[in-house]
């Protein structure tokens, strides 16, 4: 019965939360896939609709690298699910050939949580924009982080609302002239890295669409992290915020600073300091620690609760309650 299978997997997960990333990415298909014989998927198999994004939109590269990741890590169609909220970036699932869900604005994380907690056999990837993540979705982000749900979240940050045509976003820098701030934005923007670190996310990384290899690296590390792994990926909106990230792009005369070699990713204060650096700041993994996932915690509760009912059918367990109510 599937439920039992899930529980076993759950049990495996809870018992391996402290193992090395490579083994604990919670994806049976990689380790014990019976499909060993199947030949890995190629871009052709993974690409769906032709993306509608504007020519030059940074989102194209994120998509391309997601394809690469799936190819490289030999993930099968039925082992992955792609979830998004609403926004240009959130159109992501339509462009991927695989089970996908295009949910409502700002709530993709709780939706993905429902998948993560009931389907440990799946990779759960969530994609979305800065407005989706930090404006309407900001609270879900914090709570998903503190509970440490097993999934990977790629925030495609373009410092603007793209789909709705250029309004100020929580990440828009002060002075940015948008349709809702024609004189230039006046509100102190949020700092994504600070918010994630202080909220208790266990894997926090930063990258930019103009450095494909780095994006792929981050995606792999995130996927291998046993917990809630978040990547802020700068992804330029050529239509409404052209050149926003030039200062981080060597090809545009900017500088790409990787996180210093000697940075200790388990040091919260060091990570917080790194996050405080002015733009372009640093790129790479800011923070990464091991803390039991919500998935593992709940699996443990299950195992303990089920001890007393070993071998009983579900209806028999329920019967015990009813007997007490006679």
């Amino acid at each position, binding site marked *: 019965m599937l439920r039992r299978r899930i529980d076993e997997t759950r049990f495996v997960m809870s018992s391996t939360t402290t193992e090395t990333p490579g083994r604990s990415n919670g994806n049976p298909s990689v380790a014990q896939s019976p499909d060993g014989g199947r030949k890995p998927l190629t871009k052709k198999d993974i690409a769906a609709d032709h993306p509608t994004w504007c020519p030059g939109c940074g989102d194209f590269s994120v998509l391309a690298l997601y394809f690469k990741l799936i190819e490289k890590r030999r993930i099968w169609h039925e082992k992955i699910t792609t979830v998004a909220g609403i926004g240009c970036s959130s159109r992501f*699932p339509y462009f991927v050939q695989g089970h996908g869900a*295009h949910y*409502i604005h700002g709530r993709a994380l709780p939706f993905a949580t429902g998948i993560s907690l*009931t389907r440990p056999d799946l990779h759960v990837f969530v994609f979305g924009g800065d407005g989706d993540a930090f404006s309407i979705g900001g609270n879900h982000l914090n709570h998903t982080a503190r509970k440490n749900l097993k999934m990977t979240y790629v925030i495609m940050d373009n410092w603007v609302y793209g789909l709705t045509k250029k309004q100020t976003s929580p990440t828009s820098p002060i002075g940015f002239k948008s349709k809702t701030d024609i004189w230039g934005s006046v509100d102190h923007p949020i700092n994504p890295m600070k918010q994630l670190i202080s909220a208790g996310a266990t894997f926090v990384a930063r990258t930019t669409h103009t450095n494909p290899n780095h994006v792929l690296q981050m995606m792999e590390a995130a996927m291998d992290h046993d917990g809630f792994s978040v990547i802020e990926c700068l992804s330029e909106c050529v239509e409404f915020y052209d050149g926003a990230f030039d200062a981080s792009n060597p090809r545009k005369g900017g500088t790409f600073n990787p996180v210093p070699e000697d940075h200790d990713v388990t040091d919260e204060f060091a990570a917080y300091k790194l996050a405080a650096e002015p733009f372009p700041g640093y790129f790479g993994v800011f923070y990464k620690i091991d803390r039991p996932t*919500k998935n593992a915690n709940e699996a443990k509760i299950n195992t303990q609760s089920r001890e007393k009912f070993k071998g009983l059918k579900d*209806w028999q*367990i*329920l019967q015990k309650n009813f007997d007490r109510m006679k």
Partner: protein
Amino acid sequence: MTFMTIPSTISGGPSVFQVRIGSGEVLSAGDEADVLLAFYQHSYENHLAALKRGGIVVYDSDHVEPNQDCEKDYHQIGVPISGLTIEAIGGTARDKGKNIFALGLVAKMFDLDAPKLEKLIAERFGGKDESVLQNALNAFHAGYGHALGNVIETFQFVESQKRSGHQVVMSGNEALAYGLIAAGVRFGAGYPITPWSDIMELLRRELPKYGGTFVQTEDEIAAISMALGASYAGRVSVTGSSGPGISLKTEAIGWGVMAEMPVVIIDVQRGGPSTGMPTNVEQSDLNIAVHGGHGDSPRVVLAPANVEDCFLTAIEAVNIARQYSVPVIILSDQAIATRIEAFEEPDLEKLCQDISPDFTPVAEHKPYDLGASGGVTRHLPPGTRIGSGKYPVVTGLEHDEMGHPSGAPKVHEQMVAKRRKKLQKLAAELPVPAVYGPPEGNVLLVGWGSTQGPLREAVDRARGAGDSVSALHIKHISPLPNGLEDIFAGFNHIFVVEMNDEGLYGYGQLGGLLRARFCDPKIRGITKTDGLTFKVKEIMERARNNVASGMRRL
């Protein structure tokens, strides 16, 4: 405080007893107590002996852990007195709050003279700080409004259950929760709010035994989103709330309708609007349940009639959601939620279902196949391999058959029709509700939800008095079952009896639905908004007056 006579209707009870409310006080005039009211563990333990066999012990379930072995000797009724007092007045206002709440509770249980008690409270607390009195009255009304049901019923249920070993006793909230478990639900998410909280607390405690999980979320929007995500993952899941929390789920329910994602939403109705009256009963969420979404978003709405029906409705809701890929809202209310009833023990081995997802690979799949008969398509969970290599996206955007966005006029027309037609198909398959009493006559009392009991009693009494009255209970609120028009044709007067307001135009919420569909002016409303359950004689009088006035109108 004072002596008062118990209505002789209480069989076997003493005709007089002294109401002295206080921690662990015994409600009795004689040596042996008939009723023990225990606020704390120690009072429960110290005084239980003083209770006569078959007596009732009402204990504060927030503080007392009852002794299971006493079940056979006493009728033990747990009420979260502290919690309910706090929820009702925002604290316990010196333990006085709890005492007065309990007084209200007892007054309701034994059908004591409430106005008289209010006067007594006024005398007792009418000091210079009027707010103290207001607090006391609020506590009293909360207790009185707490629809625990009438102890006599409870007595009878418990007695009968003693006779045959085949009955179980539980509250409506428990019945709903256990029904969901029997139905195979293994994931749920929710945020606390009275009176919904009991259900989430029970599921949180019980689901792990079955390998399931219940998550307390940061808010109601996250809760329904998680439930939808788990449903998407392959197994119908549940969320629920009351009052304000239901309003917050509006947007996500709309997504479930558009994406055709099964999910069960429990609404334990309380007094509204807004924060309203958290501890009182009302049936005023029918409109939001049926019409509460932007755009055309048809969903299924069911309302259980009693505690046993809560158990069965939970199972039906899960199966409708799965079969028709649609959100199903269960409209319970504070009265059923907390009422304790006994009912025939269900055959769990037969009823319990395994609804684990099926991942057998398929050749191809269209999530929104327009060719599907009756517009009914089934959700295919992730994890399923699809031969064609074409995978579905579930979405809240208008979409083509594969779930990809489409703005084509024809597509929107067809998809709107698909979402409507599948519910029309469901309606055609629903049983026509049975009339209680003769299928033809002068007056038909139409009800839904927790009013079934009083309505049927009203019919019995009226017929006893020679009046031609029948009752019809509508469990399927949306879609309505077919064939109601034939039933209505058999009566001169149709009164829709509801615990909600008469509205701008003089009828209640179900009344509005029925009048709109059948355009029959003889369909009128009997409504009330005092936050209390219907009294039988209340219904009878109102019906009588309306018939009279109605005659004039016709």
